[in-house]
């Protein structure tokens, strides 16, 4: 028998027939289809028991309640807590994507020390010993005041622990990161005599006049503002937005009033002028509860008549008068200010002008108005014993000049610090703690900030992530992420009632991180002497439970404590000025430099355009870098690939020979960047707009090197009245790339 081609074919045909008659092909097909539907790299949700943990969000000062959904020990979803007074079940994009912060690859997993420019792992004991060693050395030299601390808040147990450490150590240099809270606090303090936070009862108002505040893009407590803004419309109220650019808030308002950028304060004074001159103000409030209207009138009579205001702001004088009448005639009008999300404090005079508009409308401490929300008073620890070294250190002037003769009103002036550090031969700050802040990214003129950080001999970062500040630090003591730790949330920014929230762990800490509160207590104990006695608690948990006292049970059960009795009294009862009234004028206000629209930095002949920033809910502008989901949600009219787009009016683009989508070089007195051009009719000619929140250089591949950081192109400008950063833009030049 010969095996030839035919027999081979025959064998093959037989084989094919047999295979077809066997289960092999059909079973293989089935298995392969299942295999292709379940690629091993496709993420599959964990299977197991679902549990919910009620907690509070700490990612911004908004004070929202959250419900964390877990499957076994994995956080899978974060939702807004139902019935929470602030966010009422709602949540913002950052809160929603918080789980990605917990599992983010750029998390710092253990304490790190920089040795010859690279990071080495170090034990907690060694890290604390190193800092304590350096601090003891400084104290021995009588240089305790050269310790400084930058943090996002000066309230709540963690901030108070840090501040207590500085006080007991002997340094007055606790610095809160800047925001519009600074200016609002001062505006309330100057006119009402109380140290309080501003709360806005927007949902009960019927006419909201916003001077550039991004009400639906993250201003103050974002979710509270979204909900309040919706309620305002549902209740038949109106909102008018005064802004140089057609932001989303402007687009969603009932009327958008475009004005020359940076002249909002002038317009506010102009409106006050019309209200006073035409006697449109609330007689009942002004007569009974206020003083100094005549002085205010004298001051603004010549300075801010509608025609003059019109010339400066670019808003028609008829429109100014109509707007003033609309505002005055509304039943519960409310004026708000602070540009964008409110990251930059702004001009104090501008805030005073807007606050006074509310007073003229008689809408202070009333439903639908501005409330002076008292600072929380639940932290009542025994006084710190001050030893002789500390006493000497505390008598020193603050390093940032806050409270000095030049700026007696300001409490914290972080914006002045980099220049002061860079100017001298030796850094006035020898040791710097940075907690809940990323100044190297979020402060304007990042070059100068970076240089200052390099000059400070020991920078200690408590960041959970390898952010820009952690990268330029010398030691990193990583804090737990908010889903792994207890912490009290002392307030909700812009919420019109006192509220305390409690963040609590949803999961056990994933890495070798440590609660910042525990680290401070341990450092205090290691310092010995009065510091050890100031930090008598066993650990942070013991400190927190003692601090919250009888509120602990309510907080542990509901996740928040709300002051139900707040706001019951007469509006006038809350004024603690000398006259016990709302003061339109007094000697502090009189001693301040008058309002002048601030000119942006730069020479007009070389930099013919003006660059302004804007904010979006899809990107964080705070110390937390946007998680990957947020970056994915950014429109390609803002970020395309890794290119950032700047908004430009078609007329201006034509003038400079630029077309949509082309590359251009944007330069300002502070830096240069390659950008793409996007044309928009929503921005006035001669102005350029760039989003804040991009251009990170640190973190991970999901965030780094995408777009340009606005702060690397801009610079702070000191407000003459307060010393706060009042910049709103910078001169710029745009050329074809």
């Amino acid at each position, binding site marked *: 028998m010969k095996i030839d081609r035919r*027999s081979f074919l025959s064998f093959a045909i*037989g084989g094919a027939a047999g295979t077809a008659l066997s289960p092999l092909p059909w079973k293989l097909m089935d298995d392969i289809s299942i295999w292709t539907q379940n690629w091993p790299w496709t993420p599959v949700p964990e299977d197991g028991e*679902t549990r919910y943990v009620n907690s509070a969000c700490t990612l911004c000062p908004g004070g929202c309640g959250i419900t964390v959904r877990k499957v076994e020990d994995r956080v899978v979803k974060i939702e807004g807590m139902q019935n929470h007074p602030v966010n009422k079940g709602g949540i913002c994009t950052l809160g929603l994507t918080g789980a990605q912060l917990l599992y983010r690859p750029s998390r710092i997993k253990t304490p790190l020390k920089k040795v010859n420019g690279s990071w080495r792992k170090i034990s907690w004991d060694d890290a604390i010993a190193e800092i304590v060693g350096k601090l003891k050395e400084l104290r021995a030299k009588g240089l305790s005041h050269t310790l400084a601390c930058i943090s996002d808040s000066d309230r709540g147990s963690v901030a108070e622990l840090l501040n207590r450490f500085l006080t007991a150590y002997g340094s007055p240099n606790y610095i809160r990161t800047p925001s519009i809270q600074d200016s609002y606090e001062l505006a309330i303090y100057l006119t009402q005599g109380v140290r309080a936070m501003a709360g806005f009862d927007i949902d009960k108002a019927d006419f909201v006049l916003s001077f550039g505040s991004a009400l639906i893009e993250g201003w103050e407590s974002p979710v509270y503002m979204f909900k309040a803004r919706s309620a305002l419309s549902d209740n038949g109220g109106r909102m008018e937005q005064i802004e140089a650019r057609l932001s989303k808030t402007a687009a969603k308002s009932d009327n958008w009033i475009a004005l020359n950028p940076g002249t909002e304060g002038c317009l506010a004074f102009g409106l006050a002028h019309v209200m006073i001159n035409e006697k449109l103000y609330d007689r009942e409030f002004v007569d009974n509860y206020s003083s100094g209207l005549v002085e205010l009138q004298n001051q603004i009579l010549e300075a801010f008549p509608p025609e003059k205001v019109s010339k400066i702001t670019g808003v028609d004088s008829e429109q100014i008068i109509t707007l003033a009448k609309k505002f005055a005639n509304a039943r519960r009008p409310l004026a708000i200010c602070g540009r964008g999300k409110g990251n930059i404090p702004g001009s104090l005079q501008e805030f005073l002008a807007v606050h006074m508009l509310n007073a003229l409308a008689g809408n202070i401490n009333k439903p639908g108005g501005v409330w002076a929300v008292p600072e929380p008073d639940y932290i009542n620890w025994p006084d710190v014993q001050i030893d002789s070294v500390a006493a000497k250190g505390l008598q020193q002037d603050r390093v940032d000049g806050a409270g000095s003769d030049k700026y007696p009103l300001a409490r914290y002036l972080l914006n002045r610090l980099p220049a002061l550090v860079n100017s001298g031969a030796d850094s006035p700050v020898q040791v710097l703690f940075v907690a809940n802040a990323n100044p190297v990214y979020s402060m304007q003129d990042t070059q100068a900030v970076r240089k200052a950080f390099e000059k400070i001999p020991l920078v200690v970062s408590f960041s959970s992530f390898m952010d820009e500040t952690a990268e330029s630090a010398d030691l990193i003591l990583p804090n737990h992420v908010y889903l792994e730790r207890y912490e009290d949330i002392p307030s909700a920014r812009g919420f019109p009632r006192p509220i305390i929230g409690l963040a609590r762990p949803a999961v056990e800490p994933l890495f070798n991180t440590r609660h910042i509160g525990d680290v401070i207590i341990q450092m205090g104990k290691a310092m010995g002497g009065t510091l050890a006695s100031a930090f008598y608690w066993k650990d942070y948990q013991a400190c927190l439970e003692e601090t919250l006292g009888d509120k602990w049970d309510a907080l542990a059960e509901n996740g928040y404590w709300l002051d139900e009795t707040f706001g019951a009294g007469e509006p006038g009862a809350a004024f603690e000025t000398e006259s016990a009234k709302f003061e339109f004028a007094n000697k502090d206000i009189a001693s301040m430099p008058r309002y002048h629209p601030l000119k942006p930095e730069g020479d007009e002949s070389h930099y013919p355009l003006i660059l302004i920033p804007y904010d979006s809910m899809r990107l964080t502008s705070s110390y937390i870098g946007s998680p990957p989901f947020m970056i994915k949600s950014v429109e390609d009219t803002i970020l395309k690939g890794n290119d950032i787009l700047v908004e430009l009016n078609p007329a201006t683009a034509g003038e400079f020979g630029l077309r949509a989508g082309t590359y251009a070089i944007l330069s300002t007195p502070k830096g240069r960047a390659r950008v793409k051009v996007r044309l928009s009719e929503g921005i006035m000619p001669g102005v350029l707009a760039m989003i804040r929140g991009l251009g990170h250089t640190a973190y991970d591949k999901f965030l780094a090197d995408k777009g340009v950081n606005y702060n690397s192109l801009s610079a702070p400008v000191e407000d003459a009245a307060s010393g706060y950063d009042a910049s709103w833009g910078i001169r710029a030049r745009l050329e074809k790339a």
Partner: protein
Amino acid sequence: MSADEKNNPVSSETAHPEPVATSAQIGTQTQGDTAAGPIILFFIFGLVASLVVGWVVFPKLLYSRKMQPVDFSHALHNELVDKGCESCHFFREDGSYSGVPKLAQCIECHEEVQGESPQEAKFVNEYVLKDREVPWLVYSEQPDCVFFSHVAHVKLAKMDCVTCHGNIGESENLKVYEQNRISGYSRDIWGKNIAGFKKNTWDRMKMDDCSECHVKMNVNQGSVQTKKGGCFVCHQ
């Protein structure tokens, strides 16, 4: 007719001088051209070989055999509990099904070694004392795209566990886990029978087996959302 043939009319005769030889030649030719016997043989070889491969070798190759980390007697435990399967395979408060018990449940009784079984000793020493979850191999594990609610079947439709899971509750040992090398799932999903035939309802648990029962009982054949029959009843 070609020019050669015209010119040599006898040539065809000279080509076949002997008629006998011609017939013999024809015979040989027939055998050579249509060698049906060997060809069919090869066909049968191929057929049989592939049938053997398909029915015997392939199933052996397709599945890897894995032992459970610890042996377990359902029969023994079933005698000791009072709520049957649900004593250990319980429903949580939210109605979700707990599945294979976690260590925490086992520890309620097995904090220390109870009996003399070496398997129990192994369980306590290797897992309980080291606080490690037992990596059980789950015979009924389905891909993540399959949505199945135990509570809908057991509590609402009052179905018996045996209908789908068979008499596992009476088993004294855990059988070998045969893992499909391609899909990674247990052989029990397709069924022991490689052809896919089944005798009992629990013999296999493919999509057709679900729909078979749903059609027979005339329940939930449509999507809740679309009110139409279709994939999304289970593939949510």
